[in-house]
């Protein structure tokens, strides 16, 4: 329950404060958000699997975000920014889908 409250507070803060994203972060923010979503879904699945550990959740959250950002940054420097960013998003999407499927099996037994 408390995590959900935290989420609501975060969203409300975002809506109220209307933060301006610094320019150098702007290309990486969407990828970071998707990576964080992937970590979130992984955490949910672990929760339902009964193996949730908050430390693991924290580390996976941060590492996903940082690694995704690094890959996109590297891609930009190498000149394949578009392709690498697309690839990262695709892979994160696949992981989110597989985690969501596991969660669905837990909850709906289907």
């Amino acid at each position, binding site marked *: 329950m408390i995590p959900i409250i*935290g989420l609501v507070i975060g969203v409300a803060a975002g809506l109220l404060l209307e933060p301006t994203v610094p320019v150098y972060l*702007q290309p990486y923010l969407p990828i970071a958000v998707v990576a964080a979503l992937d970590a979130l879904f992984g955490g949910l699945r672990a929760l*339902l*699997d009964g193996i949730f*550990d908050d430390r693991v959740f924290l580390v996976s959250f941060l590492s996903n975000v940082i690694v995704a950002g690094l890959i996109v940054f590297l891609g930009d420097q190498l000149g394949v920014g578009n392709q690498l960013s697309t690839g990262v998003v695709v892979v994160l999407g696949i992981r989110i889908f597989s985690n969501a499927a596991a969660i669905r099996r837990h909850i709906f037994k289907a």
Partner: protein
Amino acid sequence: MTRNSPSDPQDREEELLDSLSASRESELPTDAAHLQQDETALGLVDDPVGEAQVAAASDAELETTDQDDNAGQGVVGKSDTVLESEQAPRGVATEGGLAGDEVAEPANTPIVVPEEVPAEGVAAGVETSGEPAKSDEQSDGADESSPKASAKAPMSPAKKRLISALRPRATRAQILSALLLGLLGFALVAQLQLSQKDELSGLRQSELVNLLDDVTRRSSELEDETLRLNGLVGELESGTNSQLAAQQAAEENAATQGILSGRLPAEGPGITIGVTEGEKAISASALFNILEELRNAGAEAVEVNGLRMITSSYFTDTDQGVVIDGVVVAAPYQWKAIGDANTMQPALEIPGGAMASIRGNGGEGNISVLDTVEIKSVVEVREPEFARPMD
């Protein structure tokens, strides 16, 4: 410290069973007891057995979750069995010996808490619902007390975990998750606002360069087009002006020619002449003389008895009288002439001129000078039959 061998978990299980029976005797399912066990599980309180369990469990978790690449914390396959064996003691410790119902595992020796008959056999899918102690979050633990658990026996362990996770407990895991989720929500909203407000912010540098090239090229094309169209406008305007001037000139010309040719009615300063007959009829040639005198004096429009005089006008003597331009006209003759009166009147009055010859034949002629003479009669202009304009 690696604990992957199956013998270790079983040793620990026995250890735990002993400690359990010891702890159980000091009345269980109170929240205080649960909390205490939570704390031991967390390692917040010094508890040798508990610490060992926690250390083992967390190590095992780290190992297994490090092995997994699938999802952030999703564990599949073989590692599940190892985990289960690791978790069983932990679960039992935190649960305070209640929800051992789910503990029956094919890979483990089932940990059956003596006072609880396992109502649920959890079988099959290691990955799916067949999970050991429903310690979802190792620190969250201790949810339903034993009577509740057995009352909701048919509920799956996953749902139980979910429900237990929803209960607000001020544990480290929940607060940490709350922080991370708050961060996620904040970043999500920021990104949404950014992408809605400014379409260009999400593009890479190369894309922006391409876009800029496109826009520049299009802009230069449009500038060329503008120049061309401006030139066209200038041409059309000047063309229109010259056309207007030409039209104006043509109109003035037409007016002038119309008056002179008898096509248009005219008015202006001039004279009127009244010619009356005496005993002798006035001949056509006498009338013609008057017309010639007027023309020589610069009359611009002449009318006789309502007949406009033009270059091809003629006077003829016939039996019925004088015929002017095919119309029989009888005396008296009323002349109108538009022109300079000071020239026309003396010209008519020249001794031996037109007036003189009329008076000599017994007629009379009166000339009056008027400021405005109106000649309303017109003739239709006939196309020349023989003559044509010379180039």
